[in-house]
């Protein structure tokens, strides 16, 4: 990672920690400025990191980001497991099922595809020219 990205990550972590401090009064308990800051910085990091992903790997990239965006699992667990009315919790459970499916299939298929990318040297003996 470049210096710029490392410092962005550092700022991002800083912003995330800062967000745990008591929010400014009158914001309804939400420090949304720090959330927007996190979003902005994370997008910059994402663009910086993903621009350098090899074009060879664009299909696995898409399946791993599928799995990563299934981080919605975090919200789903809270909605499913908290002491909420049953209809709400069932909606959460469906969301949890959908996210979990993405996590499992996303990571597994990414790994399966990546295992296939070999250089000539790694092909089994006797199959080489």
């Amino acid at each position, binding site marked *: *990672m470049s210096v710029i990205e490392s410092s962005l990550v550092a700022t991002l972590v800083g912003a995330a920690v800062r967000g745990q401090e008591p929010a400014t009064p009158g914001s309804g308990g939400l420090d949304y400025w720090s959330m927007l800051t996190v*979003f902005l910085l994370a997008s910059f990091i*994402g663009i910086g990191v993903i621009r350098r*992903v090899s074009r060879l790997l664009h299909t696995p990239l898409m399946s*791993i980001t599928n*799995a990563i965006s299934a*981080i919605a699992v975090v919200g789903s667990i809270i909605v499913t497991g908290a002491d909420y009315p049953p209809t709400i919790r069932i909606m959460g459970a469906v969301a949890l*099922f959908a996210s979990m*499916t993405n996590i499992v299939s996303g990571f597994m298929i990414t790994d399966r595809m990546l295992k296939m990318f070999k250089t000539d040297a790694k092909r089994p003996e006797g199959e080489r020219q």
Partner: protein
Amino acid sequence: MIHAVVQLAYIVATALFVFALHWMNDPKTARRGVHAGIGAMVLAVLATWGLPEVVHHGLIVGAIALGFVVGVPLSRVPLTAVPQRTALSHAFGGLAAGLVGTAKYYLWLGEGSENLTAFRMVAIIAEVILGYLTFTGSLMAAGKLQELKLIPQRPVTYPFQNVINIGLLALAAVLGVALVLEPSAPWAPMVFPAIIGLALLFGVLLIIPIGGADMPTVIAILNSYAGLSAVAMGFVLDNKLLITAGALDGSSGLILSIVMCRAMNRSFANVLFGAFGQVQQQKALTEQKSYKPETPEGAAQVLEQANLVVIIPGYGMAVAQAQHKVRELYDQLKKRGITVKFAIHPVAGRMPGHMNVLLAEADIPYTDLVEMDEINPDMPQCDIALVVGANDVVNPAARSDKSSPIYGMPIIDADKARTVFAIKRSKNPGFAGIDNELYFADHTWMLFGDAKNVVGELVKQLSGGSGLH
């Protein structure tokens, strides 16, 4: 205390996600990226599950188990079906975001309107609209890619299509603004489902006018939407891990969409609202020119004499499952000391990077897979360009014919090779329905038939000539 531990776990997970994507920049480190991603996800799940407000565990266990039951088979699909699987998982991602947004809205509405601050309402509306439109849009895309009978493959167009689509989205946005202003008005519980309905409908209508050749871009855009809906969920739940991971996914979708659009010389708006299908039907009615057919025997003899062979794969190779036969051909040519390279167009296939994965599956070293921009300067030195089920990405009309719908799209310069062999299933025009001048050029010979059979014939000819091996 427990909250501090959870937050710490989230921060570690955030860093691991960034590293996971960073390691994807090289095939050598990419698998480490997967492990980092799995580690981050396990950490996030366990930390959240440990929160004191999570008190009921039965449903969680059940949903997670069911996720494994469905997820494991979905990860074992044949690689030709990866585009559909990807679209399907975007649909799941959108559904999860939409459902959590819906659940949170009704929860807060029931608990008292002071919870529904303007900021939260904007985030909920964004989450719900993005989530549900991604859900139905991706289901439609998956259906088209799977070639379900229910869903027409060809673009479906009707009068005022764009006006109707934009109108629906605008209506959903207006209702959304009304809800932000009056989140707990008596009519609010009725307006909210209307927004959901409009988003669901918009997703369907957005995808039906889009043809198969545009699918790589559409999948990338839907990827971006799925990420952004997770970001919106992060705003709703005040959770920075969701915001970060969603933003990483969103920017990935954005970059892939830009790569795809550049590779087709089109804009986002043109892909989404251009109804690519209409123009081409008229183009197909040009006068009949004649092809020069060649037999596998003849082609094999010419191939044997070559120094540099460039194979240009396209969606036809995926459909025919010809990648393993192509690899046998690669081995046969390599055995004779012939240099063989694969020229990969960014939009070849049905999703970004589709051809690379198929060829890697067939054990072809990734060092021989060359991007369009790198191979084009070498094409004049190329003895034989072998086109396997590709069409538009080698159509010289993109360079010369201003009236062609693909004019301006960067192509692989197959026509600059000394000899061109093109394997084609039938004499009909390709997916985009455009005639390809390459097939009528003086130095082009056609090999008609299923890509797998034709390449298999070539292999048989080549191996027959050199005895058993």
